[in-house]
């Protein structure tokens, strides 16, 4: 875990409200991931709340260096989730923006304490299940071979977020490991557009590695990786595994 990031401490009891931070990618393109997150959280007995005024966490501009623009959006994020006791998001990247990025972005600004406080209430979905809930097994059934790509921004959270443990515990699911799990898929937000060739080379290396064990599914903890790898797979015939979010597998594994 990065020494610079905030660890979540806020807790919620089953029956209590958990706010879903959908992420801009799922808002625009991947409603199924939001639905899966709702299914999972409700299965665990929480009341899911969705704040309709949420947009984006501010990461794209932050990573690109335009912190003035990023701060405007981050302030809106702080405001939207001001009353959320516990915030859960199906994205290591967006959780990392709040817990790792916000303290840098608001350094010397009046919102610093509020930003840190939101960080202490923000959980990545898998981390919430494994570390907040203390789950060691997921009570589902799902037939197939899955290879897990732990998205890089988990490094700025608590990298052992339990996603592998939970997946492996699903009845019928065979979890296989990539050979080079530490390697990034090459998305990196605006990085992929600024350095399309490098990003493509990285994506190719990643897809090759993830595919070697012949998985039915390549699952990630972030839709950024999935969007990038799907986009590449579409232009590179021969890549057959389904690419999706880990939450989708967890939700599908539950009885209908």
């Amino acid at each position, binding site marked *: 875990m990065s020494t610079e990031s905030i660890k979540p401490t806020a807790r919620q009891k089953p029956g209590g409200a958990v706010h879903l931070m959908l992420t801009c990618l799922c808002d625009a393109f991947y409603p199924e991931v939001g639905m899966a997150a709702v299914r999972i959280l409700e299965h665990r007995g929480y009341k899911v709340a969705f704040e309709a005024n949420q947009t984006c966490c501010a990461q794209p501009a932050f990573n690109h260096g335009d912190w003035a623009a990023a701060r405007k959006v981050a302030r809106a994020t702080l405001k939207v989730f001001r009353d959320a006791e516990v915030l859960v998001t199906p994205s290591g990247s967006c959780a990392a923006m709040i817990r790792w990025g916000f303290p840098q972005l608001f350094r010397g600004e009046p919102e610093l304490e509020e930003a840190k406080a939101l960080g202490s209430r923000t959980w990545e979905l898998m981390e919430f299940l494994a570390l907040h809930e203390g789950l060691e097994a997921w009570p589902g059934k799902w037939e197939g071979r899955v290879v897990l790509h732990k998205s890089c921004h988990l490094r700025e959270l608590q990298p052992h977020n339990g996603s592998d443990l939970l997946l492996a515990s699903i009845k019928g699911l065979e979890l296989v490991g990539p050979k080079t799990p*530490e390697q990034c898929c090459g998305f990196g937000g*605006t990085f992929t557009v600024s350095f399309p*060739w490098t990003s493509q080379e990285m994506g190719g290396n990643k897809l090759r590695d993830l595919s070697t064990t012949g998985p039915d599914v390549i699952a990630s903890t972030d839709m950024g990786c999935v969007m990038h790898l799907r986009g590449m797979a579409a232009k590179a015939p021969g890549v057959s595994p389904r690419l999706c979010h880990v939450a989708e597998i967890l939700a599908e594994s539950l009885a209908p």
Partner: protein
Amino acid sequence: MKQSKRVGVVDVEAIGIGKSESSRASVRSASEKKVVSRAMALEAEVENSADLRLEAAARRQHVIDHLDEYLLAAEKSMTDNGIQVHWAADQEEAQQLVVKLCHDAGVKRIAKSKSMVSEEIHLNGALEAAGMEVVETDLGEFVVQLDNDHPSHIVTPIIHKSRKDVAATFAREGISEYNEDPEALTMAARRHLRSVFMSADCGITGANFIVAETGRLVTVSNEGNLRLTSNTPRLHIAMTGIEKIVATEADLALLLKLLARSATGQSLTVYTQFLGGPRASGDPDGPDAMHVILLDNGRTNLLGGRYREMLRCIRCGACLNVCPVYRAVTGHGYGSVYPGPMGAIFSPLLGGEESRRKYAYLPKASSLCGACEEVCPVAIPIPKMLVALREESMRMHMPGPGGTPPWAPWSMLATSPGIWKVALESGRAIGWGPARIAPVAAFQRWLQHHDLPAWPRQSFRSWWKKRDAESDS
């Protein structure tokens, strides 16, 4: 933020694309092996390696935060040991110093062992321009010199070459007949370089550490060339950055434990040399005179500032080995002396204003995956430094890589939930059609190898609304 002021788009891609698939394959397979051997040597073999990294970070940072005191202490201890200490503010001063020391001693031929600081100040060119012959004696650097190439890694300079490449070089240069056997190639280089050591008037080396307490220089190496370079010629010049000071010999034990394991997966390098000064009367060998050049070249600007943690760096190269960008573009793709994550930070920060502008694109050549920070033996928060440099570049209107999106409209959109929702609904209704042909070069290049995500038939928001309404009824 006025985007229009940002002129001079740098296309780092053009540098990366030029490299051959064979050099990328060499780098890829060597890097993969190094990542595994590091993990075995450090995480598997050393108890509490995570704690040791934090301990090493704290001790390095302590020295950096009190560098003024430790540098003076180191100067005094070294002088007491008979070492002549010199200070160089920048590249020009450092070059002139070495040239003068060599001139004064009537040096004609120089044997040189591997030194990234000498690369940083482009020393070889300056010495050759002054009429001296310089021979690199590290096997990798020797090949680099024969090929008129540049090192592509700070520890293993020819990571981009295969043994076939080296065999061809040796055959072309008459070092040996074409032979792909690594052992035969090494023996041929050994035979060739032996005469260089015996005939050189001066040996130039780097230094991995200087111990302030005892005034000893510490070098780590694997080939034995460093011992011959520093001990055989009558003059020894060692150069290093001012940040390479360690407080005590005890600190050294910790850092040596981490350095080789992080760099090459060895528990220790083959040679760890402690140099305590020139030959004393009665010593059987050693140089008559020993000089140490301490280079600043912009390092003092980092003290006490946003990038102070970067000065902890002990140049192990672990961040290069694990970096997916390094693997994709190779060391040469960066276009700077120091490649990889550490190079993306040092290159714009060392050497003054010109470097800042010239290498402003480098901090952006990262997906911010953080694999570098995870393996750094002194726990440098590399991604944090990279985003800080990006922020500074943006404020200073530095040139950036192609495809800088306009952030002002984006921040307007993302702070107006009403418009945000309408925009997403419009996207779903219209699709990508008009956006696909947007005349933005970077985006069009990106589209060649990526498909855009499909717009969903039903959004999460409308699903949620419907569900909410149903549960209310």
